[in-house]
């Protein structure tokens, strides 16, 4: 379960937590005297004898705050147990019951969760007489709905997972699914949530005592101490310090522990951004260099970590279609994104040359020129367009932002382009949100906009991977069409040798961050490849064989 490394917050949480438990155990024994003794010196300010002064009956404020730790922690633990156990029982129960009951129960839970739990606790406090047990019951029961909902959500997620479905099909009884699959897989998130419940319970129990509906004198917890100190706030302002600090420390300890647990369960690898050396935005192109794109010795890597692209060099001539082929982790997308100037800021990037036209992609070229000269088409898993904006706004973005067109003209041009890539009712489509269009349509829309912006280079990163074969066919035709009609150069990323063979002029095979073989479609077609990886890749892809039988039957 993650690494066993101790982070600062984890150490802080454990130390604070253990300290508080120690206080809870020791203080009521060691400080029983000063905490309960009615001395003559009532209402004293802070002094050497009483660090935080005394209350109106002459009892030591600090001692009382420390002694109160035991009752507060005990009550909070009991409350947490009530809320968590109750929540798990209700949550799992809902998930185990039939679909009708489940629907109604979830609806009721939603309603219950919407009410402030403290108000709900007040209802219970109104029924029972104020006191230790009724506080625990009130806050604990009030916490059940939200924990039940979290449990039910987790259980629902797990019970629709493939492994539970498979277990069901195998005839595993429901109780066994709950015990073997649901509960173990919920344990970790539930533990983290339980720390939150603990912190909230402490806060709410103290709140209940604070408003006078919880613990009753002569017992006392943090909340009641704070309440008592409030009555003498003008005469004895230091008396609020003890309970306040104890409440905050307890909350902090639990929060740190919860954060540490969550971080262990779910390490979030945020790497710091890399400050790139400044470089000119534009580089002169030598007269004898006719290439549109020149990449020389490109290296991309995690700072202080592995290098993911290791010295890649290639060129793209104007109007040429070049393919980068490889499997996941080969570095093909990183290479393409470096060429497009869209590399992640967390990665280090070096190159001898990296230019598109005269734009230096190692520097910070003008956004307008980048937008006009390089178009990017991504894979479409259904999320390439902003779900809350209509297609029209997004498809005309480059025209309006970088080509200075008005909205009307831009829409008109895009509408025409959509019609050219065989999209029905193009004007209508511009008024729709992305989710109303199919994946193939969205991809053709993306291509259509590049017909209008006429970039010099299109960088296409697995543009047909998420599509069905017939749709892929249509999308590839549109790429070919742009190339034919406008002579646009392309850098085409794919893992599919068949696709690149049909579309591209040159094919670069990448493996582990390096180009291992440079091919032409003809050589690929005649299987004239040399590098063992290319051979393996070619053999790995079965080819549909529809050739007539050649005697061998």
């Amino acid at each position, binding site marked *: 379960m993650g690494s066993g490394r101790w982070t600062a917050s984890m150490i802080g949480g454990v130390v604070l937590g253990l300290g508080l438990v120690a206080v809870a155990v020791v203080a009521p024994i060691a400080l029983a005297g000063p905490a309960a003794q009615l001395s003559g010196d009532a209402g004293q300010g802070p002094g050497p004898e009483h660090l935080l002064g005394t209350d109106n009956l002459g009892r030591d404020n600090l001692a009382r705050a420390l002694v109160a730790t035991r009752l507060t922690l005990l009550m909070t633990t009991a409350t947490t147990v009530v809320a968590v156990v109750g929540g798990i029982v209700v949550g799992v129960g809902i998930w185990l019951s039939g679909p009708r009951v489940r629907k109604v129960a979830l609806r009721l839970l939603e309603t219950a969760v919407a009410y402030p739990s403290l108000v709900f606790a007040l209802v219970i406090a109104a029924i029972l007489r104020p006191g230790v047990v009724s506080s625990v019951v009130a806050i604990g029961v009030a916490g059940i709905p939200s924990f039940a909902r979290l449990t039910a959500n987790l259980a629902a997620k797990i019970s629709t*997972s*493939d*492994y*539970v*479905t*498979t*277990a069901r*099909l*195998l*005839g*595993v*009884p429901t109780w*066994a699914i709950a015990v*073997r*699959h649901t509960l*173990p*897989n919920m344990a970790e998130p539930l533990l983290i949530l339980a720390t939150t419940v603990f912190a909230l319970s402490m806060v709410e129990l103290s709140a209940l005592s604070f408003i006078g509906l919880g613990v009753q004198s002569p017992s006392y917890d943090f909340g009641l101490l704070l309440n008592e100190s409030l009555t003498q706030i003008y005469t004895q302002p230091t008396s609020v310090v003890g309970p306040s600090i104890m409440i905050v420390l307890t909350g902090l300890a639990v929060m740190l522990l919860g954060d540490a647990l969550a971080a262990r369960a779910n390490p979030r690898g945020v790497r710091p951004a890399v400050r790139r050396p400044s470089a000119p935005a534009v580089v002169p192109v030598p007269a004898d260099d006719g290439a549109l794109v020149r990449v020389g010795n490109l290296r991309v890597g995690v700072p202080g970590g592995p290098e993911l692209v290791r010295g890649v060099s290639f060129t793209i001539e104007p109007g040429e279609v070049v393919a980068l082929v490889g*499997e*996941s982790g080969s570095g093909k997308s990183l290479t393409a994104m470096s060429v497009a100037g869209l590399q992640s800021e967390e990665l280090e990037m070096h190159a001898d040359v990296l230019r598109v036209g005269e734009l230096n992609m190692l520097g910070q070229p003008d956004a307008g020129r980048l937008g006009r000269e390089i178009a990017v088409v991504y894979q479409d898993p259904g999320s390439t367009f902003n779900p809350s904006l209509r297609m029209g706004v997004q498809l005309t973005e480059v025209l309006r932002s970088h080509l200075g067109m008005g909205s009307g003209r831009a829409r008109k041009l895009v509408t025409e382009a959509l019609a050219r890539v065989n999209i029905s009712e193009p004007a209508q489509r511009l008024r729709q949100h992305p989710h109303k269009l199919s994946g193939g349509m969205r991809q053709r829309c993306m291509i259509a906009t590049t017909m209008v912006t006429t970039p010099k280079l299109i960088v296409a990163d697995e543009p047909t991977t998420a599509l*069905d*074969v*017939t*749709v*892929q*066919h249509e999308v*590839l*035709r549109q*790429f*070919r069409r742009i190339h*034919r009609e406008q002579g646009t150069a392309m850098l085409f990323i794919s*893992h*599919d040798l*068949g*696709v690149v*063979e*049909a*579309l591209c002029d040159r094919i670069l095979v990448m493996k582990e961050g390096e180009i291992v073989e440079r091919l032409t479609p003809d050589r690929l077609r005649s299987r004239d490849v040399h590098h063992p990886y290319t051979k*393996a*890749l070619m*053999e*790995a*892809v*079965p*080819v*549909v*064989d*529809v*050739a*007539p*039988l050649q005697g061998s039957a």
Partner: protein
Amino acid sequence: MTATLETRGLHVSFGRTPVLRDVNVTVPAHTAVGLVGESGSGKSTLGKTVVGINTPRQGQVLVHGEDVFAVSRRRRAAMRRQVQYIPQDPFSSLSPRRTVGQTLAEALDPVRARPADHEEAIVHALEQVRLDAGAMRKYPHQFSGGQRQRIAIARALVVQPRLVIADEITSALDVSVQAEIVALLRSLERTMEASLLFISHNLAVVQALCEHVVVMYRGAIVEQGRVDDVYRDPKHDYTRTLLASVPGSEGFHLD
């Protein structure tokens, strides 16, 4: 010889939307049948209906000649075990908190699920998918995607089913890993007693693996037959379009 699986006039709808319309499929004994079609064609729904994840509105599912819906609950549960289902995603098909041995033991004995009781069968199943016996005590996160898919295959095989339904099991994998799985399935076909219903959108993989193919389009079957016959001489327009869309095939043109 009785077919391993036969569906008769199967209709399935989600709400008011029909997903399967009058589907009649036959999987003969000891045969691998490919089920091809594009997204939304209903091929996955058909697989899920056969194993009982979806319920048909109308029609029959016969396993080895017996109607699954016409028998007693007890009998149906026994019949269900003869049809094993392998889902697409190897990362969600294995419970992260159970060892491989426990997962396989649960398939053999759903109630007690103790690996120690079935060590021999489990080791044998793991050997079939070319994993060593030590895998038994490991957890899914210790394996790669391709290895997990093998474990899922082992879980299906360990109960010695009559029919294995593999639902796009190579689609989430890299091509070289996909090739390994295809090679494994090919070698298993030779030794295995069970029939295979291989659901895929990849026509080439189906050709490499299956004798028969069923082509689905918009919830209906448009064509079925021997793979070589269908691919060489498709009768239906949709099959033709589908075949011509595969890069490298004869009808594939971009201009």
